């Protein structure tokens, strides 16, 4: 990716997430709090740091972005209000948009419905995997 393109991708992530990555003081509370830690290749604090360094490509290619539960615990607990989950969501969205292919289509939803599955989980998944 050219430098300009890289910068554009970074700007887009920062703009769409509304996150100021420079606020991060690298305390790691986000990662300490993350329930999906074991599933993830890059952890919330690394996410923030990588965005700061402009490594959007690496993040976009990582399955981690779909492992995030969107529980927002990292946002709630971050002392600096950096809101890592918003960054993850922004990268995920950019990937979904780029591919033009939603991970989850409305017609797939009925098949996924399960009496034990909370309605909230479907809504949340739909928000995460489609646009």
């Amino acid at each position: 990716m050219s430098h300009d393109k890289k910068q554009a991708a970074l700007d887009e992530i920062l703009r769409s997430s509304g996150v100021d990555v420079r606020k991060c003081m690298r305390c790691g509370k986000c990662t300490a709090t993350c329930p999906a830690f074991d599933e993830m290749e890059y952890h919330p604090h690394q996410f923030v740091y990588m965005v700061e360094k402009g490594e959007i490509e690496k993040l976009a290619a990582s399955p981690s972005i779909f492992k995030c539960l969107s529980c927002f615990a990292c946002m709630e607990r971050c002392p600096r209000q950096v809101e890592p989950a918003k960054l993850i969501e922004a990268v995920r969205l950019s990937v979904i948009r780029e591919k033009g292919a939603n991970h989850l289509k409305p017609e797939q939803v009925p098949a996924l419905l399960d009496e034990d599955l909370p309605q909230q989980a479907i809504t949340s998944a739909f928000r995460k995997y489609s646009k």
Partner: protein
Amino acid sequence: MQRIGVFICHCGTNIAATVDVKAVAEALGREPGVVFSTDYQYMCSESGQTLMRDAIREHKLTGVVVCSCSPRMHETTFRKAAEKEGLNPYMVEIANIREQVSWIHKDVAEATEKAIILGRAAIAKVHLNKPLKAGESPVTKRALVIGGGIAGIQTALDIAEAGFEVDIVEKEPTIGGKMAQIDKTFPTLDCAACILTPKMVDVAQNEKIKIFSYSEVESVKGFVGNFKVAIRKKARYVDEEKCTGCGICTEKCPQKKVPNEFNMGLDTRRAIYIPFAQAVPKVATIDANYCTMMKTGKCGVCQKLCGAGAIDYKQQDTIVEREYGAIVAATGFNPMKPTQYNELGYATCEDVVTSLELERLMNAAGPTAGTLLRPSDKKHPHTIVFVQCVGSRCDAENEKGKPYCSKICCMYTAKHAMLIREKYPDTEVYVFYIDVRTPGKNFDEFYRRAVEQYGVHYVKGQVGKVVEENGVLKVQASDLLSGEQLHIDADLVVLATAVEPDKSARSIATMLTASMDTNDFFTEAHAKLRPVESPTAGIFLSGVCQGPKDIPETVSQASAAAAKVIGLLAKDKLTCNPCVAESDEMLCNGCSSCEKVCPYGAITYTDKEFRGPNRTTLIRRVASVNPAVCQGCGACTVACPSGAMDLKGFSNRQIMAEVDAICKM
């Protein structure tokens, strides 16, 4: 009409090379009111000053204009010289023709023209100058220290040492403050009580120091040198004069279930109590919220037992009025209660404690008599997790915490970790940190000892979650250097919570008209050069009320504040800046516009009688400025619509005369 003398300085060639000084002298000599005009090589030299003094005498000058360097350089020099010759120093004005003319302009014609205009402006101003006399106000030779912690104690002792009277107002029943609750002190590990309590005794025995314990400042009036303070002595239902502190009442009181605040609520005390053994004054206090006699009228055990007859259930609050020359704020701090962090479990798990609670758990006079036992089951903890920066270093928008670093936590946590490892080597100690900050003499060495000698596990990362499961604290944390998420089964979790200014500080600052920052720390008069003074004259700052600091720093600052107080009290009279605001009562509307913008509270209003039409009298509300408090900023003069408020030395007419002179070409 003034008789003005004008002196043009060559400043060697600094001015004369670019400004035609002769031409300036000649041009200004033709200005109305100018009776003498000359130029000289160095006006600031001894002979230059003599030249000026001779001219004042010979030409009966009433005003002087010196065209020279910046007034910030030699205004005082020339004013002093004029004063020696009997001319009021405030009749001297400077036209800055060096910094503002010769040093920045190259063209001689242009520079000379500008020098003449600046000279004219100064002459125009001098025409309207009036002799000013600096007022004087007496100094009450007594200081008040608000707060009886180590900061207040040190300040009071130092002031008393210099021979001045000091009062300490302490809202708790005893002085000692937070230091009295601390077990050991870093980096030397002396026992806090061993070094603090002798100082408390010194205070009690010092004839110059009077302690108002269990008392609060009710109101503050007056100004530097002349404060009038009302102190509320809260009813403690025990006569301080009679009580001998024998403690029999505190042993026999049947109400045993009162949370003991000195031990951070980790055990209980009686309804009548002495906070701790070395309390000063050693006088009992009845807690009216718990006393059975006070609540139901039935009991009276303490009164029956008291041999001194000191118990008085009918005691009332009393107000004492005292006068002071200086006031020191030493209101201290409290560790934040971390109840808002649900994930850390402080509110739900008994074995999650704050660092100050841990101090009590480790203290020989604490609830466990010095054996480290966890609160829930009184068992010895084998795995202890310390969490740093709880509530400190948060984003300014984050309502849960404070934006600043609390400064002391890194060091006391190292101390705790070290002490625990030393006393209980079978204990595993983890410290989760963001940064370890150890600037200070022997501080980093101390921290390294904890790691290297005592094997404390320092982990770069934070704790994300603490939950209790069957008496075990499940700690989930990050280890950023290894990129792992750690899961630790702990027995005790200790939170290093942010320090925050005492709640009483805000209202005290308002009474003192001392300013505070957004975190409720007192602000200094100058962050670098006047760090122990408040911008309000006569108000000084000692200890954590000004910002987080440890004991050695607090003590240094306390002594520094004392030195400033002594400097003030050593004076018999204060000379005021004569360039202060003045209200013309005939023009004043009494509208209070000026009062609202005065940063010093120097303006007060009185209802005064004036002559009305047809031999009537009428009462009007008018402003008056206290010249001892006014610092001469002039904010009030612009707020005043009627022009009643004016600033001496920089009056409306003087400034407009300068404007006119500059614009007239």
